[in-house]
């Protein structure tokens, strides 16, 4: 099965990339764009018969795929 993980910067963390893209979007004729946040998106192929898959995936997201100091993550199946 394919598991999707979305990692986003926490609200308190500056996201200068997002701000630069927002400025570009406004400049390109979309003044209605108010904010852009840039994160990461991962697609993970995994054997869905694996025991404890959910909790192990969560551990992986917490320890490797995101840094809880600056990022939040969401696992989408």
């Amino acid at each position: 099965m394919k598991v999707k993980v979305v990692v986003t910067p926490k609200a308190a963390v500056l996201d200068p990339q997002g701000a630069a893209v927002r400025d570009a979007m406004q400049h390109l004729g979309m003044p209605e764009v108010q904010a852009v946040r840039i994160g990461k998106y991962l697609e993970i192929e995994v054997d869905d018969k694996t025991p404890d898959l959910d909790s192990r995936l969560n551990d992986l997201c917490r320890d490797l795929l995101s840094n809880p100091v600056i990022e939040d993550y969401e696992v989408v199946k």
Partner: protein
Amino acid sequence: MKFGVIQFPGSNCDQDCLAAVNGIPGLEAEYVWHKNTSLDGYDAIVLPGGFSYGDYLRCGAIARFSPIMSSVVEQARKGTLVIGTCNGFQILCEIGLLPGALVRNRKLHFVCDLITMRVEVPDSAFTHGCAQGSLLRMPIAHGEGCYFADEKTLRDLNERDQVILRYATGDGKIEASANPNGSIENIAGICNREGNVFGLMPHPDRACEERLGSADGRKIFESMMRTVEARRERAA
């Protein structure tokens, strides 16, 4: 006195660190490959700068799982001095030996410059012999050096004198114009609560000879040497 300089795949300041430490009388350094699992016999450990594992995912995110890192954590818990410069600082934050994190520079640019820092804690294991408020000049070269910590962590860092160095103007003022990367409160280097693990974005390893623009980096390594010597004298 022997320093171990850890080499990760993608480290590129390992040779600078080795040369810097070896250039200080009384110190010798040798490389430790990241797949080793022991750090026995070293008086201090250096995590050098570079782009370990290509900085994939996040800077330091993959290096923190290198086999040697369990030994780094073990040594850190035992009180051995550990210094991480640049990418080494990022790895120490990723593994949780230092609080906070390093994120993309506020202005998005990779910054490569010679900067000034003010010594905020003169009696730390890494700034022993530097007067309070004295200034150190060292090079920086990084794209992700903007130090971030949440409010509580920041308060703790300040209350416990863990902010060792801040970016400053040439006359020692801590202000936005002297901040090269947007780091919160101009933080350039911090230590852990116990005071034996230190991380900084600037490169003391590239500032150990006057002909390179500054020899202030020597003060950091000499301070580490004095700290280890003092511990030995106390133990004897």
